[in-house]
């Protein structure tokens, strides 16, 4: 019955080909194809997640080879969580994208390919296979980022491509070192053989360094984040919602997988320096990301820098090697995806409805667009970590883990990060709810002109990208409101989820 596993990857790939073919028959027919493929994908993911969480790990070996020679696909509690997230978010963003666009068939082909890459990355149990999916994800992500009109998104995509390729290449290089040490690529097999080879040997240490730095580039941890803000800000609104919610999240999942399943906690115990460096990277990323976020004027760029800080929190959870912190990292990974994806989509909705794209444009938004402002406010406060939202629970677990392991510096940074997050979101919340709409920005046209002058050197670029004000579909509102509701509701579900995922986390940490 585990034959279902490869379908999780196959369904979006088939959908991607169908979306392209459908374009030959009729243009702009990609959306329905993508919705059907994505809905089937959600079904497959839900069934796999149910089995993994309630019945134990699901394994499948591709092509009838034997482990460790064949490529193994593994769905345990950890991958089931991320798999479900990928499936649900990609379907949700489709509901948003129907009116918001882009509408071409090749876009939806790339979209589904991205979903396939993310799914593969989530369920693979083979290190080289992980590299291949990392590159599929990367390639599809570069293409969807570039799908915006005008040159800005193309430049952002090229920059993303150059840096992202270096990240994936470093991952490949590290994988090579691990392969030379052990002669295997299966993750479970690598864990035992790397331990036999010796965790303190230079070869294994080098492998760890390259693989982790490669993934940190993909996650966009400060100072390796330079591709990320522009890629998020320059891509079309639906795309920034999707990639901010999923691409870095799944890369962070890959990091957890590699550090805990392949190198195992014993490696971190044998090399305290590696563990400390992860902690330092996390702390620096939290502080620097937040400070840079405060300095931004464009809302989407601010949200992008906020992601740099939030991934710092996740890495902090990883570096603590503690069960509580690990659950916290997972919860925050999922929570951040929902909240940040929702925030980007809300920012897109606000921009579509009123033309507001900078922090100053948000003045008095609550009067002009109550639903949008409320959703943004709720998501922003959830991100800051106001109980009972999921943003609070994730941080709480990570901070608790830091206290349990007596890492006081990291504890201070994690608690302080709440204040830093407040620093950049309070600016927006205050402007939206407690200030009057400036007279000039009263009508949407003027605000848009302002935004264009301030935000665009590439003439007519912004104007093309924005649909005329007022074309906000019901689907867009529904997705944004659902994200805000989920961000609050998930907080209550965390305790049950923690119980479900505990066996997986325990086995990871042992």
């Amino acid at each position: 019955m585990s034959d279902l596993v490869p379908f999780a990857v196959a369904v979006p790939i088939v959908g991607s080909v169908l979306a392209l073919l459908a374009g030959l028959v009729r243009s702009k027919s990609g959306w329905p194809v993508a919705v059907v493929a994505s809905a089937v994908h959600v079904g497959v993911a839900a069934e796999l997640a149910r089995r993994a969480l309630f019945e134990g790990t699901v394994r499948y070996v591709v092509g009838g080879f034997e482990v460790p020679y064949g490529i193994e696909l593994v769905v345990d509690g950890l991958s089931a969580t991320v798999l479900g997230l990928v499936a649900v978010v990609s379907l949700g963003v489709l509901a948003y994208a129907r009116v918001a666009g882009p509408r071409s068939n090749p876009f939806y082909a790339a979209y589904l390919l991205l979903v396939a890459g993310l799914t593969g990355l989530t369920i693979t149990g083979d290190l080289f296979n992980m590299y291949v999916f990392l590159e599929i994800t990367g390639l599809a992500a570069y293409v969807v980022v570039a799908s915006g009109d005008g040159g800005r998104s193309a430049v952002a995509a090229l920059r993303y491509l150059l840096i992202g390729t270096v990240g994936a290449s470093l991952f490949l290089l590290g994988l090579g070192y691990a392969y030379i040490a052990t002669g295997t690529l299966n993750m479970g097999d690598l864990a035992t053989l790397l331990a036999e080879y010796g965790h303190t040997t230079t070869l294994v240490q080098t492998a760890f360094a390259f693989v982790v730095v490669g993934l940190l580039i993909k996650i966009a941890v400060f100072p390796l984040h330079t591709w990320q803000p522009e890629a998020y800000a320059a891509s079309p609104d639906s795309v920034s919602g999707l990639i901010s919610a999923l691409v870095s999240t799944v890369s962070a999942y890959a990091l957890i997988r590699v550090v805990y399943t392949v190198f195992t906690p014993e490696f971190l115990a044998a090399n305290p320096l590696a563990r400390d460096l992860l902690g330092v990277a996390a702390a620096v990323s939290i502080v620097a990301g937040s400070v840079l976020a405060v300095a931004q004027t464009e809302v989407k760029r601010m949200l992008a820098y906020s992601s740099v800080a939030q991934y710092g929190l996740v890495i902090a959870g990883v570096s603590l090697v503690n069960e509580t912190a690990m659950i916290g990292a997972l919860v925050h990974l999922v929570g951040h995806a929902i909240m940040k994806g929702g925030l980007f989509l809300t920012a897109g909705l606000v921009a579509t409805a009123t033309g507001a794209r900078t922090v100053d444009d948000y003045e008095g938004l609550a009067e002009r667009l109550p639903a949008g402002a409320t959703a943004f406010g709720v998501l922003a406060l959830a991100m800051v970590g106001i109980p009972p939202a999921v943003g609070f629970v994730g941080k709480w677990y990570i901070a608790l883990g830091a206290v349990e392991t007596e890492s006081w510096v990291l504890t201070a940074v994690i608690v302080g990060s709440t204040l830093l997050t407040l620093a950049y979101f309070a600016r927006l919340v205050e402007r939206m709810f407690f200030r009057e709409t400036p007279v000039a920005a009263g009508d949407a046209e003027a605000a848009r002109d302002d935004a264009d002058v301030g935000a665009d050197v590439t003439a007519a670029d912004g104007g093309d990208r924005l649909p005329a004000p007022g074309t906000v579909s019901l689907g867009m509102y529904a997705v944004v409101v659902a994200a805000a509701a989920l961000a609050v509701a998930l907080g209550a579900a965390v305790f049950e989820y923690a119980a479900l995922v505990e066996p997986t986390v325990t086995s990871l940490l042992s």
Partner: protein
Amino acid sequence: MIDVIATRYYYLATFLLLGVGTYMMIGNRNIVKKVIGVNIFQTGIFLFFIASAYLEGANPPVLTTEAPHVSPLPHVLILTAIVVGVSLTAVALGLVVRIYDEYGTLDADTLWEVRADE
């Protein structure tokens, strides 16, 4: 030291290719050359894998030849990685063409500046 360099010159070549590739990516202002830099960087990694599979005096991994054989798996891996590299280059060059159409320049500093002003 000299010994190692004389017998393991392929690792030296890997190191050089990685260095040249990185330098081109960072130091060169032309975005086409940056893409070439990425390719050289990846070639260094390919060489690293292939060199690791090499065994002095071994036969190709074909059943009719006698043992010892060189390891075939890294070759297969690198074949896959080369395909990935080709696709990346294609996407990158496609983007370069679009950027040139839009801005009429291939100079990275100018392009990044346009972006930074926004």
